[in-house]
Every structure is written in structure tokens, then in C-alpha cells.
């Protein structure tokens, strides 16, 4: 069991400010992600999801506690871990084409020659449905398409774990549903372990094998809810299954309890 | 940021620059003869004030810069309106402006003295030549970019084309025109100083050259600070005019922050 754990958060704590202004953000986060899983992290707004993701990615350090990736403590961005950021308009480089943006992530991968990298980038762009757009610049693409380039770039580093930071927060509802299915399909096709941070409860349940519900700030893990719906999901059928509705109900209830506490 | 904070930040910066200057002067890294301390520079300024040559020339320089800037702004806006009204003029003037724009003012001064003498006409001509482009280019671009809805609103109200131009398009373009005028203010001061340097009769630019040629080093530095001060002063004046004329925009952008 333990040997399949790929990412582990052990009692993560972080606070901003000093003295009286000290504001604890993360207050003892513990969870695990197993290889091959799709895990969602969901929590009430303003609960420090981004802070958590930064710590998991090795982009910032927790005050105490530890992130372990493949058993090794994370102190800086480790090899084999890729991030897709929420803000696609700024995370893609405007001076590189879609293809060049994807190739930029192939630093430690098997593709060494120029041609190999090109072929691999085109393959990934085809996988996200952007076959004909390899030569386009990000600013020539719609928001949804830009985020697909960012996802292709995330896949390009051939990582063991892909962190997705609210990747669909800024796209419209229809695109959002399509992208959810695309990400699920890609995760299976490339056997990609994923950790999705989101504020959308439906999305969290629909995508995941396991939902980690965070408490409000100072944040800890409120509960973990397994989602037993199998690997194949369908926007209509899955959302009507009792298992989906049950998991959704549980997550919703948790988050609502925090909301009413805040209001009170 | 509040204005008081901005001002105090400016004051702290000024003190820092002066302190740094004094420290370099005292360190002896540069011979004191070439790099006098702040007290020596103040002394130089005081002497020039006592003889009256600094206030007299300062008034001349500022007066020239301001007159030129106002005329260049008015002319630039007029050309921008003309460009907006006539596509023929717009396209044609672009060729002419691309030839006139890169001319360094210094190159024109010798010939201009010939034609215009050493009086105010010379300075107005040189300033117009270099300062007109900011208000003109910004104005033409802003007039083109006025939202269609605003123009249609005017038409629905039965306004004539001229009324739409002056009562809707021009006010809408004013904030961007002022950005051009702010740039023109800096350029007009450059033009005045260089024209005074080369015309060689009066003004801060002339004084700067004369003090430098006669190796009056503290005075030269004092005059350098005066030209910097003039730049700040002119920028403040433009900002004041902007607040008076486009107060709505200042409040709109201030409120959204």
C-alpha cells in the first residue's frame, strides 16, 4: 500500500505575517495521493488552496511539516512533477508558438533531438485537439484553447504527477464540461496521476477517485470522501448516479457548514 | 497611495540623492574641483541669484517653454481634429510627419536663427517642431478610438457633425491627449535648452554653456539642477491643467483603483 504512495503531505503548516498580524493559513494538512489516482482538493473560498498547491509543487516552503514526493522531501520543484496554472493567459509565453510552449517543458524527457521533440509536441497537441494550431501563438487562441496548450505542456514533461490549479476556473460553462472530459481522457490515456485543486464541488466529485475536503482558514483536511464511480465518467449519466449524488451531498454539506460558521 | 505619501516619498528620494551626491564628493573618489559638494553648489546658485542672472534667465526659459508648449498643444490638437475629419489629410500628413519627426532640434537651430532671429519666434518654432507630435499622435489615435455608442448617442440627439466632434469626441480623447502633452512638456524643455545653448544669447541653456566654458564648475552643476527642477515644475503644471480640464477622468480612474 505504502509503496504506491506518490505524494504525501505531512502536517503542513504555514502562516503569513508576524506578531499580532500573524495569520495562519495552513494548519496541519495531511493526505496522500496514490499512483494512478485522480484526486480532487476542494474547499471553501479563501481557504488557502493556492498556498497548499505552491507548497506541494515545491514553489514555496511550509513553515513546518513536509511534502514528500516519491518518498523524497520536497524543497524545490522536483523532477517528475508538473503544474498547470489557473492563469493560462500569463503562464504561456507569448513569444512562443503553441508547439514551442509545449517543447519548452521537455527538458529532462526522453526526446533529445529537435525532431523527436517536435513530433512529441505535435502528438500532445493533437491529443488535446489542437493539431492544426501548433504554429499559432497563445494570443491567437481562445481561452479554452490556451488552457489546452498549458495542459499539453503539463503532459510534455512526462511527470509522475500533474498538479492542476483550478485550470478551468476562467473558461465558460460549456467549454468547462468538455475540458473536464478531455482531462479525464488524457489522464487515462497517458496513465497520469493527477491532483486537481478546485472550488467547484461538482467538478471535484465528477473528476476524482477521491475528494479531499479542506476546512476553512486556518485550513486542515476536514474529510476525505472516496468516489466510487469507476474510471469511465459521463457528463449526463455519472451526474445522475446515486454514488455521485451521495458524494456531492457529503462534500457540499461539509463546505456549507463552514460557510454558515463564517456568516455567523 | 495618498498624495501626502507620494510627496513625502519624493522628498525622501530627493534627500537620498543629495546625500549620495555629498558622500561621493566627500569620499574624494572624484577630485573636488570637478565634483563639488552640495554646499559649494548652493553657494554657486546663491551667487547667480545675487547677480540676478539666474532669476532673469530662468524666467526667460520657463516663459519660452510654457508658451511653446501651449501653442504646440493647441496646434497638435487642431491637426488631430483635422486628421479625424479628413482621411486625405490624415494619410498625407503621416508622410510629412515621419520626415519631420526624427529631426533633432539642434540641427534646425542654425538655420532657424537666420530666418527668425534670436527672439521668442525662434523658440516657438523649435518647440513646435518637436513638441507637436505627442498631442497630435495621441489625439489622432484617441479620436479614432471613441466608442461608436457615444457617437451614435450624439447623432440620436440630433447633434451636428461639428458638435459631435467638439462635444463628444474631443472630450473623450482629452485624457490621452494629456498623456501626449506630458511627453511634449519634457521635449519642449529639451528644445528650449538646446536652442538657448546654440543661439548663445540668454536663457538657462546659454548660461549653462557660458559657465561651463569659463570653468565655473559649481555654477554649472547648480544650473543642471535648475534644468531638472524645471522638468518637474512643467510636469506639475501639466498635471494641474489635466485635473482642471479632465477632472472626470482623474476621478474615474482614481475611483477604480
Amino acid at each position: 500500500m505504502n509503496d504506491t504512495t506518490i505524494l504525501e503531505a505531512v502536517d503542513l503548516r504555514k502562516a503569513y505575517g508576524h506578531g499580532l498580524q500573524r495569520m495562519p493559513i495552513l494548519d496541519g494538512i495531511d493526505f496522500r495521493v496514490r499512483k494512478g489516482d485522480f484526486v480532487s482538493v476542494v474547499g471553501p473560498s479563501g481557504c488557502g488552496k493556492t498556498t497548499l498547491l505552491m507548497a506541494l509543487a515545491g514553489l514555496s516552503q511550509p513553515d513546518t511539516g513536509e511534502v514528500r514526493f516519491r518518498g523524497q522531501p520536497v524543497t524545490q520543484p522536483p523532477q517528475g512533477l508538473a503544474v498547470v496554472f489557473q492563469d493560462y493567459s500569463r503562464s504561456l509565453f507569448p513569444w512562443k508558438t503553441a508547439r514551442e510552449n509545449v517543447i519548452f517543458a521537455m527538458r529532462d524527457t526522453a526526446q533529445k533531438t529537435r525532431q523527436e521533440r517536435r513530433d512529441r509536441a505535435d502528438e500532445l497537441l493533437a491529443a488535446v485537439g489542437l493539431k492544426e494550431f501548433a504554429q499559432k501563438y497563445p494570443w491567437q487562441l481562445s481561452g479554452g484553447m490556451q488552457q489546452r496548450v498549458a495542459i499539453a505542456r503539463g503532459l510534455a514533461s512526462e511527470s509522475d504527477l500533474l498538479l492542476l490549479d483550478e485550470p478551468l476556473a476562467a473558461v465558460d460553462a460549456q467549454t468547462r464540461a468538455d475540458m473536464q472530459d478531455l482531462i479525464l481522457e488524457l489522464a487515462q490515456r497517458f496513465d497520469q496521476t493527477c491532483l486537481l485543486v478546485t472550488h467547484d464541488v461538482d467538478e471535484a466529485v465528477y473528476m476524482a477517485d477521491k475528494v479531499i475536503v479542506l476546512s476553512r482558514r486556518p485550513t486542515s483536511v476536514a474529510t476525505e470522501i472516496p468516489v466510487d464511480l469507476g474510471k469511465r465518467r459521463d457528463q449526463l449519466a455519472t451526474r445522475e448516479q446515486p454514488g455521485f449524488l451521495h458524494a456531492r451531498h457529503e462534500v457540499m454539506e461539509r463546505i456549507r457548514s463552514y460557510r454558515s460558521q463564517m456568516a455567523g | 497611495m495618498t498624495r501626502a505619501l507620494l510627496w513625502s516619498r519624493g522628498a525622501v528620494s530627493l534627500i537620498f540623492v543629495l546625500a549620495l551626491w555629498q558622500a561621493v564628493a566627500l569620499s574624494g573618489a572624484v577630485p573636488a574641483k570637478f565634483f563639488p559638494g552640495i554646499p559649494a553648489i548652493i553657494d554657486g546658485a546663491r551667487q547667480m541669484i545675487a547677480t540676478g542672472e539666474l532669476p532673469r534667465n530662468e524666467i526667460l526659459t520657463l516663459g519660452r517653454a510654457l508658451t511653446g508648449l501651449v501653442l504646440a498643444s493647441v496646434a497638435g490638437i487642431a491637426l488631430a481634429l483635422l486628421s479625424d475629419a479628413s482621411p486625405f489629410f490624415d494619410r498625407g500628413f503621416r508622410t510629412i510627419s515621419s520626415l519631420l519627426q526624427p529631426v533633432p532640434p539642434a540641427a534646425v537651430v542654425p538655420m532657424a536663427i537666420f530666418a527668425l532671429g534670436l527672439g521668442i519666434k525662434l523658440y516657438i518654432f523649435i518647440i513646435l517642431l518637436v513638441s507637436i507630435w505627442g498631442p497630435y499622435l495621441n489625439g489622432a489615435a484617441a479620436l479614432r478610438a471613441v466608442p461608436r455608442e457615444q457617437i451614435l448617442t450624439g447623432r440620436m440627439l440630433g447633434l451636428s457633425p461639428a458638435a459631435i466632434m467638439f462635444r463628444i469626441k474631443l472630450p473623450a480623447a482629452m485624457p490621452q491627449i494629456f498623456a501626449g502633452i506630458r511627453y511634449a512638456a519634457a521635449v519642449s524643455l529639451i528644445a528650449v535648452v538646446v536652442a538657448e545653448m546654440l543661439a548663445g544669447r540668454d536663457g538657462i541653456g546659454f548660461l549653462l554653456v557660458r559657465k561651463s566654458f569659463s570653468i565655473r564648475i559649481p555654477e554649472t552643476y547648480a544650473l543642471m539642477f535648475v534644468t531638472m527642477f524645471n522638468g518637474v515644475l512643467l510636469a506639475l503644471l501639466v498635471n494641474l491643467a489635466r485635473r482642471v480640464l479632465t477632472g472626470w477622468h482623474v476621478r474615474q480612474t482614481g475611483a477604480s483603483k
Partner: protein
Amino acid sequence: MIPLRKPADYAPILMPLIVVAIWALAAASTSSPLFPGPAKVAQAIWHNFSTIMVQLGATLTRVVIGFAVAAAITVPLGIMLGRLRIIGQLFEPVMDMLATLPPPAIVPLVMLFAGTGDAAKITMIAFAAAIPLLMNTYEASKTQNEMANLVARSLRLSRFETMLRVDLPAALPMIATGVRMAVAAALLVSVTSEILLATDGIGVFLQRQQENFQIAGGLAGIFFISLTGLVVNTLILAFEKRWLFWHYRAQEDAK
């Protein structure tokens, strides 16, 4: 089918011709040697062509050297000041004050230190070009895109690699603006220094024409300076179009 042309399409050629025609008529009606018409100026261009070229060559040589020296020092310095926040903020007021100094005022100042020779003139030009270059490079690398840097870090780029492959391209559009300002300042200071400290160069040529009442010759000289400025600007714009199109197109699309 030939596309229908509007009168405005002929304006770029027609309007300058109209201006020249008016000029010619005005000059013919006064017939004063102090107000030469376009034909006289064309003649003067023909007569003085080789002199102007030699003098302009001397001017441009100094401009190029001065500009190169300025760029070599200020671009790395600007990036460094932008990256090292604290030092940058300390020197920000110094840079702000230098930016308000009119470039020609540099001429008498540098003269105090360096005299009036070629080296002094190159120093003046370098100084004038350095200020806009430094300001723009500093501003560009100060306002670095946080997100781009996060991406670079998550892709495990080294500091140097990030600077070269992320920071520098991101800063180039603003540096290019600085280059255009620097070229204008360099040309201005170069001509000013030549007129004041006469030795050679196009500024000296202009001064001589004035002293000898050769208005047409002077206008011919100005024509070539303007042409030089136009060519340099066009080259810089072409470079920006070729290498920095992503910046301008992205801005247009954002509107």
C-alpha cells in the same frame, strides 16, 4: 479587377507634393536668397553631397560607438537593478532625476571632465543614450511577470536560464522603446556637441552653412539628418516587427 481607389490612397504622395509646390511658389514670389525654393535646395544637395556624407559619417561613427558603449553597460545593469529589488529601489530616485535632465545639458557637464575631443563627444553620446536605456531595462525587469517566473521554476530552470529565456524576451519590447529614445537622444547630443565644440561632423557642416549664409546648403544638411533618423527608426521598427510581433499582436488582441 482593379480595386477602386479612394482619393486618400494618393494622399501620402500627393500632400507632400502640394507642400513642396506651395513652398516653391512662395520662394519664387519673394525671390530672396535667404528663402531658397525646393530647386535651390535640390541643387545644394547635389553640390554638397560628398561633404555631407563625410561629415554625416563622422557624426554617425560617434553615435554608433557611444550607443554601443551605453547599451553594453546599461542593459545588464538595468536587468540587475531590476532583479535586486532593494538596490534598485535605492537608485530609483537617482534614475528619476537623471531622466528629467535634458540630454543636451550633458554636453557642458561632460566637457568639464573630458574636454572637447572625440572621446569626450562619445562620452556625451553614451551618457545621453544610457539614461533611457537604463530606465526602460530597469522598469521592464522590475515588473517581471510573476506567473512566467513560477512556470520557469516549476520547469526547474536555473536562475541564469530563467534570465536568458524568460526575463530577457519578456523585457525586450520595453528595451526596444528605450533603444528608440536612446537613438534620438544620441543624435541630438551628437549634433549639439558638434555645433558647440566645432571640429567635424554634420553639426559643423550646418554651422558653416549658416556662417556663409548658405540657407539652401543648411536645409540640405537637415534633410539628410532627417533621412538618417527615418532610416534608423524604420530599421528598429522592422526589427521589432520581425522579433517582437508577439508583443504588439498580443496587446491588440487583448483590446
